[in-house]
């Protein structure tokens, strides 16, 4: 079985798929990739199923080595990437030769990057999913020295690319009212939509703290709210008035009131807000949210048609050759 050997990896990198459903009643939230659009993009680029597991890399990638020939795709937050020291294009699929080294550096936009492989990563199936759920202690973060097994690859396409989706710089995020929104008075809800928030650098798979200047956001009736079901995208406000956007790996229930919920179509965009980046929330109606959801799903199903062959600029090709010559020389040096 082919595998990808991990020589170096950024902290917090995990294998992720669409998550596990059906276990909320047992306290296990769905989890899965923070940016599900990226999973669909990777699937389109490799002409395979979007449910296969990919490597989610927060902020930075790592150094990997292929044990056999394999196909890869890179999606989500763009990172500086090279195969055997030759730069490769993000949001595209590539061939990785046996023994080739793939190096993925820090993000240049957005927050979380994804490495997909033809056939998907073959992590053990736990509760019907392969994704790690660190908060539930299901699976674990990928670490240096790991050998990531890869499933059988039925495809052969490489060298496809997708246009960069404009979801990687934060900005306007649409929210709808949820069952606790009315615990905030109308003025507070209006002020919430007029406030510029910054993503706190400590964000993780459970959620992100939303920093802002000025007064906090306080519910009427304070904190005497019964623990209730949390859905991904809920914006919960803690006792000091600070909002937290709850993400894929949140708890299943929570006792802090929630002012609103990010619509599913904007969740990937919210998750990709870079550290310190700006988020502004806009209230929309249910009908507007449904229209956005429909448009989002049409976009996802059009991805495979949007893939185009990577076009190489002759000038760039010369450049690539130079890189390869250098890498050849480097590889000959004993370590």
């Amino acid at each position, binding site marked *: 079985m082919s595998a990808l050997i991990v020589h170096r990896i950024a902290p917090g990198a995990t294998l992720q798929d669409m998550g596990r459903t059906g276990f909320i009643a047992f306290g296990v939230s769905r989890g899965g990739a923070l940016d599900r659009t990226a999973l669909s993009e990777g699937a389109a680029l490799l002409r395979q199923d979007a449910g296969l597991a990919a490597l989610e890399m927060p902020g930075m990638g790592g150094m990997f080595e292929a044990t056999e020939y394999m196909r890869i795709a890179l999606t989500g937050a763009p990172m500086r990437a090279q195969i055997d020291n030759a730069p490769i294009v993000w949001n595209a699929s590539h061939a990785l030769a046996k023994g080739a080294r793939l190096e993925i550096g820090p993000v240049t936009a957005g927050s979380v990057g994804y490495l997909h492989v033809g056939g998907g990563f073959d992590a053990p199936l*736990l509760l019907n999913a392969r994704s790690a759920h660190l908060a539930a202690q299901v699976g674990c973060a990928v670490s240096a020295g790991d050998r990531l097994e890869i499933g059988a690859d039925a495809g052969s396409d490489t060298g496809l690319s997708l246009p960069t989706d404009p979801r990687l710089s934060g900005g306007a995020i649409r929210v709808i009212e949820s069952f606790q929104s009315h615990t905030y008075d109308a003025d507070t809800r209006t002020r919430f939509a007029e406030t510029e928030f910054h993503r706190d650098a400590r964000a993780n798979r459970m959620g992100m703290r939303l920093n802002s200047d000025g007064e906090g956001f306080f519910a009427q009736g304070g904190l005497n709210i019964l623990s*209730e079901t949390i*859905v991904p995208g809920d914006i919960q406000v803690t006792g000091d008035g600070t909002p937290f956007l709850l993400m894929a790996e949140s708890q299943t229930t929570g006792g802090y009131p929630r002012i609103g919920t990010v619509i599913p179509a904007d969740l990937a965009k919210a998750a990709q807000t870079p550290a310190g980046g700006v988020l502004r929330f806009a209230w929309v109606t249910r009908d507007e949210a449904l229209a956005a959801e429909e448009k989002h799903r049409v976009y996802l199903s059009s991805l495979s048609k949007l893939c185009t062959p990577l076009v190489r600029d002759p000038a760039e090709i010369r450049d690539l050759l130079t890189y390869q010559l250098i890498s050849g020389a480097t590889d000959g040096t004993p370590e």
Partner: protein
Amino acid sequence: MSDAFTPLIRPAGLCGLLVSFGDSLTEPANRAALAFAAAVGRAGIDGIEECAPSLVSVFVRFDPLHVSHETLEAALQNVLSDQDWFAAPMPSGRRFIQVPTVYGGTLAPQFDEAAEAAGLTPEEALASVSEARVRVQTIGFAPGQPYLGLLPPDWDIPRQTNLTKAVPAGALVVAIRQLVLFSVSNPTGWRHIGQTGVTLFQPDKDDPFFLRPGDEVQFVPVDAGVLDRLKGDPDGGAKIEALT
């Protein structure tokens, strides 16, 4: 007699509805939530992808592009009108589980403090908690983690103002007449009064969750040596019998 609260159906995000049977935790509201969730599961309503009870509510997840909010709400309203949910029987297949527990000492350092908050001597507190037969009201927050209640009224004590940085898996904590048994190590505002050896969640097992809503539990006092000898038993020495 039915509760005065009229069940409410409200949106939970774009793809969810929440059916609530109360705005505070009562025994009838909890019973209603458990029974209604089971009934929704049996009803096979088109479009429902997941249905999960919490303390006094039932969360229903669906695809709103497949079935509209209005259609689903009407279907849920239909089930609601079937019976008086506040008087519903407990779920079937319930069990009575006795869990060996070390109270106080270094393994559960907040026992004395909790007893004092409840206005009880340590001896009275031990008798009160360890003789209580509490019910799993919901599983939530973390995998397989039960909320159990209700304890006698003395135990209506608030959460601490400061969080305990972490209690270990198997920790028994108390506040607001409820007990929570921790499935994984987590910070908490509840007071750590007991320690058990129960593993509540084993993701690689066919039956990964130790407890189910409706189960009745008694936390039986043992000394630290007994708990130590139970290491390696994922059930932590628990005695399990079926309730009819």
